[in-house]
């Protein structure tokens, strides 16, 4: 299990993470969502032992990870850059990582390499961005660490390769209880890959839920009421946790948290003429959740 306990991370006078608590159970595909600068990459770097927290704990299987060889050996981190170790060929890079990760599987590497078909003896600096990404991903999977951290993992990959990489990750998860933590702005991919996700904003966790339950708890409601002259406001629905409230002519568009039953109960006293509940995509949840926190694209209008 990966844990953050009251973790604070500061960069001089900027607080990147503010007393964050997070638990990622083993075998989970965990998605980290958030606005730019919310602290997603910081969490990944804390888990991989790159950053030392100012306070709190960062634990891998109960052990602090910073400066701990044992704990670090359980984690493989793929960051959002692709320029490291450019002087190596893929074979040399594989041999290098193989020395540090005793569970490294040549078999897995060869299998994945055959699928991707990257040149083994060309320097990585000559690879395209996507090829570099593929190279490091197959090495990361072949290292067979219990935890794999991917920061903007699918950046630079073409659609076909995205599917291949996703399949590789899913296979690895199925084969050996691999815990994958993915940080991405591409919510579709998080949606496809992850079973749990956390949303971060300004160094705090907004929510940390299983995606299925998350989707079932937030609804988009299109409704119209019998009293056409009356103008309804948020305050008229105190029993609903409303993320978004908008009126277009006589139709109200409401994004609210709660089960279908709770929503219908809250609307019933005002005799809705129509009340359609549409499930929200992860992207819409992201936008409306952050809108509540003041992170709203309408500020530009």
């Amino acid at each position, binding site marked *: 299990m990966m844990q953050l306990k009251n973790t604070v991370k500061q960069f001089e006078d900027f607080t990147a993470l503010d007393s964050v608590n997070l638990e990622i159970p083993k075998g989970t595909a965990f998605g980290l969502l958030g606005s730019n600068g919310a602290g997603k990459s910081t969490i990944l770097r804390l888990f991989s032992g*790159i950053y030392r927290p100012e306070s709190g704990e960062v634990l891998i299987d109960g052990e602090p990870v910073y400066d701990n*060889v044992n704990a670090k050996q359980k984690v493989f981190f793929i960051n959002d850059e692709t*320029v490291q170790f450019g002087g190596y060929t893929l074979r040399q890079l594989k041999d290098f990582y193989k020395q540090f990760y005793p569970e490294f599987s040549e078999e897995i590497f060869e299998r994945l390499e055959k699928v991707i078909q990257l040149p083994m003896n060309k320097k990585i600096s000559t690879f395209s961005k996507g090829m570099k990404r593929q190279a490091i991903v197959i090495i990361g999977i072949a290292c067979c660490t219990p935890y794999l951290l991917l920061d903007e993992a699918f950046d630079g990959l073409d659609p076909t390769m995205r599917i291949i990489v996703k399949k590789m990750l899913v296979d690895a998860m199925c084969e050996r209880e691999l815990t994958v933590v993915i940080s991405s702005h591409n919510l579709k991919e998080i949606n496809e890959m992850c079973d749990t996700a956390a949303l971060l904003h300004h160094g705090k966790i907004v929510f940390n839920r299983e995606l299925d339950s998350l989707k079932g708890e937030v609804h988009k409601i299109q409704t119209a009421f019998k009293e056409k002259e009356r103008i309804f406001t948020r305050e008229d629905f105190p029993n609903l946790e409303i993320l978004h409230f908008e009126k277009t002519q006589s139709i109200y568009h409401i994004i609210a948290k709660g089960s279908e039953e709770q929503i219908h109960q809250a609307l019933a006293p005002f005799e809705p003429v129509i009340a359609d509940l549409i499930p929200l995509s992860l992207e819409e949840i992201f936008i409306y959740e952050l809108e509540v926190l003041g992170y709203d694209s309408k500020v530009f209008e």
Partner: protein
Amino acid sequence: MTAKFLNNYPARNALRIISQNRKFAIVTSILYLLGIPMIMFAGLTEGYLSALNAADKISGYSFNCEPYVFIGGFCAAIAVFLGFFCGIRAFEDEWNKTRVDMLYSLPLNGTQRFFSNYAGGFVMYAVPYVISVVIGWVILLIMLPMIQKMETLSIEYTEDYKYFYLYYFLGTLGLFVLMCLYYTISAVCASCCGTLFENIYTNILLNALIPGTFAAVLAVITYNIDGLDFEYSWDFIGFMSPVGGLIYLCYLILDKGMDANYISNYDSTYCGYNEAPETQGLIPAYLRWIVCILLLTVALTVLAWKLYQHRKAEHVGKPFVYSWIYYIILTAITICILCISAAEDDFIIAVILFSAIVYFVMEVIRKRGFKKFWLSVVTYIVTVAVAFGGYILITVTDAFGRVSYIPALATISSAEITFSGYGTGRSTSYDLTYKDRETLQKIQDFQKNYLRNHDSLTDELQKLSHDYHSQLYYDYNSYDYSSSYSDYYDNYNLFDPTSFTITYHTITGTNIHRSYSLYDDEYLEIMQICIGTDAFAEANARLLKNRLLSEIKEYNNQTHSYEYPANASLDIRYFYSNDTESTRRIYLTDAENTIKSLSAVYQKDLSALTFENYCTDEIIGYIQSLPVYESCSGTVSFLKEHGFSEFSLTSALANQYSNKNTLEIRIFAPENYRSGSLNYPSCVFSSEHEMYLKENSESYQDIAMLLDSSVMTKYYPELMEMLSHARRHYISSEPCYLVYLNGYEFLIPEAYSDTVQNIIKLGDYHYYQLNFYEPNYNSTNVYF
């Protein structure tokens, strides 16, 4: 935990660094391999071919190793210089954001990461050097025995090669240790800087500033505070920086090693001949130095490691992870610039302006702009205030009492005193070491007395004294007769006080140096301590032996023989004479042993010499500028046995008279040249009597006579009477007359002042002649 630390992950990371920098490592290796082996091969080839040439086995073929030595030296210097770059390459991941991620996420802890990076760079830097040194050894071990077997090898080469193995070992080991220090400084910089640019310039500045700041500050302090010697600075410069250490290593091997084996330094009593370097103090000094450098390297490695451990991954891109190192550099630069103002007061405004420009430019570079510029102005003002305040504090407190600090007798293991002799062997410099408590106590008493006396001299008096000395020096040298005098003596020293250095070696291994300027009476106090001591006698005798052996060796070098000649002739130089043949040549059979016997006799005589003898004995002659006193009966007898005949002034004058030559005599009354309590021809000044000299500076008069043959005939008996008492060497506290005879100084002891007064009465008539008559120096001048 130990097992974790000792896993092979650090070695793998080190190999990664070497692998990533293999092109750079190849270039360094080539430079090293062109360096030492080429120097060695070229130098030894020249030696071998020279020896073959000398043996007439080959002819007409010459080989000059200099171009190859230059190329080799250049390559080696570049390779050694690249050490800081090896450090940068080893730690380069630290200032690249993406590489930091990959490096820090590897299963290595901070300690493993630091030492693996450190080791990776160090292997790139040092291994090629070690290989080149080993190749050098192979060349040396093959070629040197070939040369040494050549019987025709000249003595010079024999001496060169005798300790070559040792010097090569000491030199290469010393350089290796310095390389470790140099590389470690680059590791400290790597731990402290977050960008490549800052890293490079911090490296360069630190290496220049450590010795530079010490040198500048200590130069200013020692220049302005009497007693502290700049020599003292080497304890900082030579022991605390790679650049200073390299200079110190060269000094050790050249000065205490190679040069000590020759008589190249004729004027020093500490020069040895064919003596093992151990006896010159090379090995102890070298060991002390190398241990200090190693300790410093270890300390800096620990510092770099600790700084690295506290460094965070997010510091990448920050110019200085630890801003104190930047402020140390900035302050050091400012102080170095401000030190220029100590040399010339007029520069002070310009120097402050210049330092301000440099300071603010560096601040703008660090801050990448003018952010909080007012803070830079404040810190600059504080820096300048602290620099000047520190300077004032040091001068006011006499370097926090260091000037007057004298270590307790019980803590001293030995004291080394160094001073230039004059009057009796002006060109000899003494370097005497004493260990006995009695002499150590005398030296300390002398030092206390000196400090007390000089402390009581006010600044105004010191200035008056200085001005007066300058004027007198000018006056003295404006006389014609000084020209012949200066042929033998160094005029620049004539009115200068002699320099004197005390070095206390304490039982804890530290050295305490003090340097003073001695006036006549203080010089005599020192001589009073030294005369009759074994150290003094031994030093003079060794010098005598070395100089004489050197003379015959030089002669023999022309014939490429390394044997001393069976027979040789030596010059005994008279200090005074009025004919051009001023030397007496004696002939020796079995020269080497005869010289050693003479040296032994001379040592025995000097051991028995009392201070009274030293003051009042006439010097009957000089051997290689070393005086033979009247009371050196053993030496005189030895010389007579070898054909030496004594010489008297009156007989010389008689000879002058018979040749009808013109004679110039000047007589100085005691009050006109008197140096306080002392009458000493070559020494005119005394520290205690500056006021006396000042008061009498207007009355620099003399009584002069120019005696032609008719006048000489007329006053011959009286002149003979006066000159029969004339002494070239005489030290007394009683006033006595000084006589210049054809440009040479003699003293008439106070007991015979009446004979001089008689001459003065006789000479009144001739007094004014001198002003209108140019003496014929061609016929009367004396050459030494």
